[in-house]
């Protein structure tokens, strides 16, 4: 399960002729997983966040909780080794760690709403510097994909989001105000993008860390709200 970890001190920016794209999806997940503290109960959303459960976080032990009531799951299993009765919130066939337990859906969300989840890591379309985020409905869409996100956002002790720093057209996803319908308001404490780690602090985002090769200027140019240097 050991993977190379990114993060650490930012390296010198690469030449402008070859613009740096920063962290990969797995690197974002790995970087966020480094934030998990020993003993935490962690819920991972569908998409990039589920990659966190494959990350080696050294001697720290965390308990991965999934909305479907699986408490204490481990890495995703390769084809052929799956237990078809065992999936995480993303429907992936995962393993169980020693000490795992199972509850039904109502008890699983009892755990979520009552503040027993130390952190939830969710995907997002947008996050605002006030800590609002949007991840359930696209502009103009009739349907939505709420899943457990609104419960997690309202109930978890900390909400981290992982998202690409910009949309495909270059428009920022880190903004002053979400344009899309929000999932919850004022709850995000850490946003990880391919460009770095950013903390919503009200008047802007504080830069916790930049991905290797990413300059503060490049990050500022790609962000729709003030970036406050560490």
């Amino acid at each position, binding site marked *: 399960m050991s993977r190379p970890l990114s993060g650490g001190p930012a390296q010198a920016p690469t030449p402008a002729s070859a613009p740096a794209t920063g962290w990969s999806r797995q690197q974002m997940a790995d970087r966020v997983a480094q934030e998990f503290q020993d003993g935490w109960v962690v819920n991972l959303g569908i998409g990039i966040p589920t990659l966190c459960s494959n990350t080696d976080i050294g001697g720290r032990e965390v308990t991965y909780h999934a909305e*479907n009531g699986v408490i204490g799951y481990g890495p995703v299993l390769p084809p052929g080794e799956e237990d078809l*009765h065992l*999936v995480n919130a*993303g*429907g992936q066939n995962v393993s169980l760690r020693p000490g795992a337990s199972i509850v*039904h859906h*109502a008890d699983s969300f009892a755990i979520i709403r009552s503040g027993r989840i130390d952190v939830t890591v969710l995907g997002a379309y947008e996050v605002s510097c006030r800590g609002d985020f949007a991840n359930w409905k696209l502009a103009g869409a009739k*349907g939505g*994909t*709420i899943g457990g996100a609104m419960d997690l956002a309202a109930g978890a002790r900390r909400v981290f989001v992982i998202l690409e720093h910009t949309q495909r057209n270059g428009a920022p996803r880190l903004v002053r105000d979400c344009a899309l319908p929000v999932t919850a308001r004022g709850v995000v404490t850490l946003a990880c993008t391919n460009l770095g780690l950013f903390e919503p602090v009200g008047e802007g985002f504080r830069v916790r860390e930049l991905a290797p090769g990413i300059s503060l200027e490049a990050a500022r140019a790609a962000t729709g709200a003030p970036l406050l240097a560490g």
Partner: protein
Amino acid sequence: MAGRGKILGSFAEAVADMPDGAVIAFGGFAGPGTPYNLIRALLAQGAKDLTCVANTTGGAHQPRMPDVAMLVENRQVRKVICSFTAANRPTDVIPFTRYYEAGEVEAELVPQGTLAERLRAAGAGIPAFYTPTAVGTELAEGRETRVINGREYLLEYALPVDVALIRAWKADAAGNLVFRLAQRNFCPIMAMAAKLTIAEVEEEILPVGALDPDHIHLPGMFVQRMVKVPPPPEGLWTVRRVERAR
């Protein structure tokens, strides 16, 4: 607490009397617990004007297994109540979307924990409760909220259903059920919220008294009909699902 004829010989028989207009809850979360065989039987039975309560209408995975969206395609559904009415990934399109966007079926989008708690409330004789979920969002617009100990909560109502279709691992003839791992999910709370619960069961149904009372996840009083899932290919079993290519 004898069998009382809870064990039926076929899925067709188990759903034969499903009335038009029924409110039906479908167990399952991403595969485990999904009553594939009962859904297939319901497609053949043909009851119309159904309201379907489920976590999703079915995903964008392959191979496709019987799902709520097939009932929609079969023109049996008036409305779905789900926590997903679009695909997980914006780039995917799920079968349900075309019918929903064409206005051929209604949908009520409910946060997953609220969906679970509304079902649990129905099974617990609690008509309404307050939850922090969805406060400040589009879903709360125009709805009743209440400040309790300084925090704002949304009023939610119980969600009783007529029928629950679920899948279990083990059973005894009295209807006591045991689920395996992630198979449990919505199944027990849907059964508790239902007037009639029909379970498809993976292992041979045991004589009354064969299960340890401390290991039973759903007491038999909540289960009225059971059908053993036959081996494949006659019976449908969970298969490994792969993400549909983008």
